[in-house]
């Protein structure tokens, strides 16, 4: 058994179609030893997923290897036959995917999936395989594996699905595991559990792990080495911690700078000076929003449970918590898209909680409270152009027409730094960042006083996220907006907000000024969340 597990040299991959050929990988070389974790990081379009797919011989349809070699344990995989690849996959070389729920067969029980993998590669009877599957689930962090084994994927949480997927992937003790964004769909706590499990397995079995991720914090904490990719090439490679602490390549440096983390302020992210904050009057005297004993249940499930807080004029309050903690429901309650079951929502002097959500569009307060949605793509009408999306609230809420309307839309586009020529495009021809800008412009169109931001940068690349966050901060300061900022990303909230509310299971478990809360979290739950934040670069990673 040679130490060198994977050796990729001068690999080129192109997507060929009738019209054109797009280069995805352009001469990538890297290697991975047993017991080593190599993180491949980069933004979307860098080719990191293609690299992972090429390594296991499962390139997307249309993708072709144009040059180079992939040697796994001394064997060339580029020229290997399908039957050989089928025998290697799952047994010696395995993969876990980004979206665990989609990657598990929806009509097959979790236990059956593991049995399938075991029996594909080993001469095991059904009963023996079941015993082995149970042991694997136990190893994957399910102390009581029987109910998990019998469950269908849709009955499990994303984190549980991913751990079940890992149990499948390592069932036949592969020497190399490729993990493509294994935690992208998971919340912080599940992310920790999944990554710790992977790291432990690597150590226990001296497995190699190729970790494809966009998350520098994750890479810094778990990887031994890191390779930074940009448009199909590796721009920098080296030991994870020191590479991120002292990046040599300008692109790596830009990535590191754009990543929100402890000790970085929003002004650092911008690169250019932001306008200074407006001096606020006696803010506490008249809060713009005060919520008391707000509750919402969906069927049996309590989504928001007696939540109360105050938002001062010009203040930014962050709401953090894991998925299912009720953050988004709170956002939708406050922006009056759904009706509360109990409690009050006071906007200045108006009891907006008492106004029915179905009729709220006709109320003057509608103009003043706007929401930026989590899913920038899903929240834009696919048939409407960017212009129409931004113009819609202006037509409906302010009755603007003709040239006045067009002028205002152009002004808003300018405000959110969206190139005017993009206004004629429909959502599918805009990038993620551009869609987010359209969503922000639409929310700003009616000149609101309170902006509710529900995970506005989820799914964006860090450099795009940095520019959106900078934009939001600039708008906040220029327009004197009050913000309710929902996010699962503590590092982002830390930069953007004055105060933080920590939610768990529908309740606010802790509340405080941002810096106090991050420095000295009182609740054990908050401490866990804070501890799971990525820290790298100038500081030594000392968590875990």
């Amino acid at each position: 058994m040679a130490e060198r597990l994977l050796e990729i040299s001068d690999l080129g991959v192109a997507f060929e179609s009738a019209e054109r050929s797009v280069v995805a990988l352009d001469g990538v070389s890297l290697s991975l030893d047993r017991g080593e974790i190599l993180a491949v990081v980069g933004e979307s379009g860098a080719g990191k997923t293609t690299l992972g797919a090429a390594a296991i011989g499962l390139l997307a349809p249309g993708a072709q290897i144009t040059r180079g070699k992939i040697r796994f344990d001394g064997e060339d995989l580029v020229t290997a036959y399908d039957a050989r690849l089928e025998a290697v996959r799952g047994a010696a070389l395995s993969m876990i995917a980004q979206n665990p729920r989609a990657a598990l067969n929806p009509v097959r029980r979790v236990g059956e999936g593991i049995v399938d993998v075991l029996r594909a590669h080993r001469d095991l009877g059904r009963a023996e395989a079941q015993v082995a599957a149970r042991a694997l689930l136990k190893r994957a962090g399910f102390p009581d594996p029987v109910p998990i084994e019998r469950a269908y994927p849709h009955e499990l949480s994303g984190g549980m699905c991913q751990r079940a997927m890992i149990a499948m992937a390592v069932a036949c003790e592969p020497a190399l595991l490729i993990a493509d964004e294994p935690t992208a769909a998971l919340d912080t706590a599940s992310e920790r559990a999944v990554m710790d499990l992977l790291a432990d397995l690597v150590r226990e079995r001296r497995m190699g792990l190729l970790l494809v991720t966009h998350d520098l914090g994750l890479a810094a904490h778990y990887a031994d080495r890191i390779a930074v990719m940009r448009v199909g090439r590796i721009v920098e490679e080296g030991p994870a911690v020191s590479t991120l602490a002292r990046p040599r390549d300008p692109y790596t440096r830009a990535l590191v700078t754009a990543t929100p983390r402890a000790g970085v302020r929003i002004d650092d992210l911008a690169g250019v000076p932001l306008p200074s904050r407006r001096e606020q009057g006696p803010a506490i005297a008249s809060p713009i929003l005060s919520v008391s004993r707000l509750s919402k249940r969906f069927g049996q499930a309590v989504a928001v449970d007696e939540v109360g807080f105050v938002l001062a004029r010009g203040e930014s309050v962050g709401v953090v918590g894991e998925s299912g903690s009720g953050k988004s429901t709170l956002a939708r309650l406050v922006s009056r898209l759904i009706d509360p079951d109990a409690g009050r929502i006071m906007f200045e002097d108006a009891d907006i909680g008492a106004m029915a959500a179905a009729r709220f569009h006709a109320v003057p307060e509608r103009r003043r409270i706007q929401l930026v949605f989590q899913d920038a793509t899903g929240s834009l009408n696919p048939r409407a152009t960017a212009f129409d999306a931004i113009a819609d609230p202006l037509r409906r809420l302010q009755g603007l027409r003709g040239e006045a309307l067009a002028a205002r839309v152009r002004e808003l586009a300018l405000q959110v730094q969206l190139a005017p020529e993009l206004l004629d495009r429909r959502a599918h021809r805009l990038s993620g960042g551009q869609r987010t800008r359209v969503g922000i412009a639409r929310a700003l169109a009616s000149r609101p006083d309170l902006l509710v931001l529900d995970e506005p940068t989820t799914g964006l690349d860090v450099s795009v996220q940095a520019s959106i966050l900078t934009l939001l901060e600039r708008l906040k300061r220029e327009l004197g907006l009050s913000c309710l900022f929902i996010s699962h990303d503590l590092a982002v909230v830390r930069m953007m907000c004055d105060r933080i509310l920590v939610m768990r299971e529908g309740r606010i478990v802790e509340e405080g000024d941002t810096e106090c809360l991050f420095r000295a979290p009182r609740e054990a739950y908050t401490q866990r969340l804070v501890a799971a934040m990525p820290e790298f670069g100038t500081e030594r990673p000392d968590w875990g």
Partner: protein
Amino acid sequence: MAGLMRIVAIVARRLAAAVPALFGVLVVTFVLMRILPGDPASLMASSPSAGPEEIAEIRARLGLDGPIPEQFLVYLGDLAQGDLGQSFVTGQPVATDLMERLPASLELILVALIAAVAVALPLGVAAALRPATLLDHGVRVVGTLGVAIPTFVTGLLLIYVFYYRLGWAPDPTGRLDVFLDPPPRITGFLLVDSLLAADPAAFRAAAAQLVLPAATLALFVMAPLVRITRAAMLEAMASEHVRAARALGIGRRRVVLVYGLRTALVPVLTVAGTVISTLLGASVLVEKVFAWPGIASYSLDALAAGDFAPVQGFVLLMALIYVVLNLVIDLAYRLADPRVTLA
């Protein structure tokens, strides 16, 4: 046990929910039959020149002299006692007539359905696994032809080729060769009864009679089944879980059948449900062409004769079959996809 109770509760609720629909069907058929032109009393009269007194007398005997609402109430009262009325043509109770003929129709439809699915599923899967090849296009052409040509034309064409020209098929009339003794009636399904009676000759004969009409029906409904199987299979094979299964080295056969086809079944089931409805409708013509003694040709004859009761009974029976069919399809969804919840 709790699961079984739940299923029973769901079935009971669904059947109860179907009652208003069935009642609506009753009303519509009843009224429609009476406003359609044609008077059964004059048709039944001894001669075309029968006097108005005789016709009025027949009418009174048939209970057709009162106003329509009153006739309807009488009909409902009879129905409540399980009486579907009498057929003028056969002189038998409609319930007896229908029960006698229903197995013939069901046997034909079920065999056609099984044949259509048995051919369509593999073809659809094969086409999906090799999209845009000769096989894929060929499957599409055959399927389209099947649905584009009316069933009676297909039926006559099959008779011409396989009975008249080639002589492979038996005389295309009825369910069994007239010179053969039918097996003792147990279920009414000749294939089943002949097996139960251990009579291989009768089984072979009954099967031979079935081939052409069943093939005619199957050809007619194959196209939608193939098309949906192909589409669902294409999507399933491109899904992430199939990719994951391949990444874990699960064998090709298993990937296609368990990870691909198994997850593609729900849309196929949906279409299978509508296909059975199509079969029920299409069987009317096919039964005519092949002189098949089923309920569809029976009710068609009754309709032509202005014989109200058999048509009403037939429509009610069809509506019941649809209700049960929908229920079965919904329960099958649950088996095919554990994510489906039944309400």
